[in-house]
C-alpha cells in the first residue's frame, strides 16, 4: 500500500476547563491518500474542527492533544515544536477556516494577506511573490485580480472572501488542505463553484480534508467519509458504501435528514434528542440516549470500531452482532 499523505491514529484532544476534562476528540483515526478527498460529517460540536486544529497544531488553550499520532507523509507532527510547526503550516498543510467573513484581517489588503504566505515560506522577490499571488487569485476565479489585490476584506462579498481564503491555502501547493465548512456561509451557486475548485485541487495532487455538517456537500466531493458523533468516529466508509449500506443508527438518521430535505417534505426529519455533554459522557455508547435501537449493552459498554467490509468500519454493538452471523 502506498504511504498516506495523512495518517491520524488514536487521536485524543481535550479541553481542561474548571468543569473538568472536555473530551472533544476521542480515539479518532483517519487516513488520506495523495490526491484523495476525505470528508468528515457530524452535528455541530461533535469535534470536527478540533480534529482539523489538532492536525494544524492550532488547538487553543486550555485544550491540547492528549495522545495519539499524526503523520504527514510519515513525519510525526505531534512531537514537533512551535518553530518547526510554523515551517509546515501554510506550506505543507494549510487550512481554510469556517468563517470567511471574519477570517481575514480587516485592516490589511487581501492581496498582501495571500502574498504573505509566499514570503513566509520562500525567499523570493516582492515582485515574484506578487505575480504568484495574482496568478493564484485568478486561478480561484476572482475577477479583475489587479483591483481585488488592493481591496480590503469588507469590500468583498462572502464568496470572494472565501476564494481569497482558498487562494491563501493553495498558494504554496500544500500536500494537505483542510477545508472546515468552506461553503456553509455561501449561497448554492457559490457553493457549487467552491466545490468544483476543491475538486480541481485534488485532481492536481493535493489531498483534501473537507469538513461539513452537510452530507450533500460531502457526497459531491469526497471519496471517503468519516461520520463523527460526540468526539468519536462512529462510521467510516467510501461515499458509495455509506449511502448504499449505512450501518450506524446515527448515519441512518443523518441520511434520513438529507432525503427529507431533498423530497421537500414539510417536516424536516431530524434525530431526536441532543448531543451529550462532552464533559460527562454516558458510560456506554455516547449515541445510546438518542438511539431507537438501543439495547442493554449499549448503556453499559462502549462499542469498538470494527471493520465490516473493505474500508467500512462501524462503532456499534448492533453491527458486531450482524457481522457475527
Amino acid at each position: 500500500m502506498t504511504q498516506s499523505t495523512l495518517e491520524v491514529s488514536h487521536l485524543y484532544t481535550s479541553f481542561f476547563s474548571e468543569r473538568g476534562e472536555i473530551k472533544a476528540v476521542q480515539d479518532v483515526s483517519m487516513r488520506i491518500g495523495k490526491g484523495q478527498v476525505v470528508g468528515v460529517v457530524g452535528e455541530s460540536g461533535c469535534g470536527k474542527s478540533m480534529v482539523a486544529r489538532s492536525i494544524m497544531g492550532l488547538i487553543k488553550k486550555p485544550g491540547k492533544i492528549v495522545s495519539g499520532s499524526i503523520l504527514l507523509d510519515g513525519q510525526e507532527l505531534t512531537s514537533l515544536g512551535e518553530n518547526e510547526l510554523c515551517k509546515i503550516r501554510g506550506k505543507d498543510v494549510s487550512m481554510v477556516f469556517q468563517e470567511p467573513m471574519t477570517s481575514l484581517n480587516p485592516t490589511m489588503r487581501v492581496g498582501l494577506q495571500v502574498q504573505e504566505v509566499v514570503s513566509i515560506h520562500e525567499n523570493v522577490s516582492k515582485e515574484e511573490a506578487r505575480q504568484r499571488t495574482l496568478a493564484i487569485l485568478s486561478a480561484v476565479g476572482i475577477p479583475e485580480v489587479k483591483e481585488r489585490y488592493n481591496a480590503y476584506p469588507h469590500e468583498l462579498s462572502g464568496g470572494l472572501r472565501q476564494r481569497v481564503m482558498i487562494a491563501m491555502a493553495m498558494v504554496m501547493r500544500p500536500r494537505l488542505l483542510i477545508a472546515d465548512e468552506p461553503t456553509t456561509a455561501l449561497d448554492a451557486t457559490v457553493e457549487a463553484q467552491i466545490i468544483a475548485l476543491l475538486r480541481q485541487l485534488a485532481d492536481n495532487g493535493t489531498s483534501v480534508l473537507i469538513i461539513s455538517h452537510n452530507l450533500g456537500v460531502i457526497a459531491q466531493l469526497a471519496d471517503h467519509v468519516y461520520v463523527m458523533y460526540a468526539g468519536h468516529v462512529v462510521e467510516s466508509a467510501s461515499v458509495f458504501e455509506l449511502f448504499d449500506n449505512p450501518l450506524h443508527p446515527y448515519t441512518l438518521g443523518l441520511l434520513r435528514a438529507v432525503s427529507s430535505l431533498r423530497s421537500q417534505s414539510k417536516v424536516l426529519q431530524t434525530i431526536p434528542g441532543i448531543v451529550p455533554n462532552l464533559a460527562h459522557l454516558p458510560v456506554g455508547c455516547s449515541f445510546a440516549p438518542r438511539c431507537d435501537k438501543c439495547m442493554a449493552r449499549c448503556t453499559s459498554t462502549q462499542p469498538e470500531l470494527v471493520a465490516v467490509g473493505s474500508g467500512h468500519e462501524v462503532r456499534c454493538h448492533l453491527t458486531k452482532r450482524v457481522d457475527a452471523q
Partner: protein
Amino acid sequence: MRGSVAQGVLRRLLYALIAIVGVAALVFVLLRMVPGNPVATLLGEHADNETVERISSSLGLDQPLPVQFANYLLGALRGDFGESYTLGKPVSELIGPAFVNTLWLALAAALVAWVVGIACGLFAAIRKGTIVDRLFMGFSLLGVSLPVFMVSMLLQYVFARYLHWLPVAGISDWTGYILPAIALGWGSAGSIARLVRSSIIEVLQQDYIDTARAKGRTNSQVLVLHALRNAMLPVITLMAMQFSGLLSGAVITETVFSINGIGRLSVQAIAGRDIPLLQGTTLLCTFVIVMGNLAADLLYNVCDPRVRKGA
C-alpha cells in the same frame, strides 16, 4: 476615492471650525454673565461711576454683546486677543510663551503615557494572568485613581526633596519636565495600558489571528503584524481624548511645579477677573483640543480602511 478622502478632510475641518467658534461664543457669553462689573473690580472700590463708564466704553464694553463678539473674533483672526486687564500686556504676548511651556509639558506627559501605557498593556496582555500582568495592572490602577496633585506632591517629596535627584519646581532645563510629566502622564498611562491590554486580548481571539498562524507566522510575528494594528484602533481615540485631559490636568501640575504655562495663567486670570486673558487661554485650549481630536480622527481613518470610505 482620493476626492472623497479630501472631501472628508474638508468636512471635518469645517466641523472643527464650527466647534471652535461655538466654544468661543459660549465662553464669551458665560464670562459676561458673571456678576459684578470687571472694570469696577479693576479700578478698585473707590472709583466713581463716571470713570467706570468711561473706561468701559473705551474697552468697547458698552456695545451690544453680538457686536462685541464679532469684534473679538475679527481681532482674534489677526492674532489680537485684546489686552490683559491685570498684566497690562496684549493677551497674545502672554499666552504665546505660556502655551509653549504647556505644550512641552503636555507632550512630555503624553510621551510618558503612550510609551509606558502601550508597553505595559502589551506585556500584560501577552503575559495574561501572570505576576507581570497583575503588577502592571495594579500600577495602572494606581495611576488612574490617584489625584494628579497628590502624585505631584509625592513625586516632589521623594525624588526632589528626599533623594535630590531632580529639581523640586520650575523649569531651568529639560530635567525640570521629568517629574511634572510623570505626575501628569501616569493616569493616562494607566488607562491606556488597560485599554491596550483588553484590546490585544480581544484581538488575539479573532478568527484572522488563527488564519495568520495557519500561514506559518510565529506568535511574535502574529502579534506585531496582525494583532497590534487592529488592537490600536480604539486606543487612538482614547489617546486623543486624553490629550485634552492632559491640558486640563496641566492646570494643577503647573501650579504645583511652578511652570509658567497656560494652566497657571488661566488660574491667575480667574483670580484677577481678567476676562480678555481668560478668553484667550480658553480659546487657545479649545483650538488645541479640537485639533487634537481632528488629528485622531484622521489617523483613525488612515489605520482603519473600513471607515475610510464613509468618512
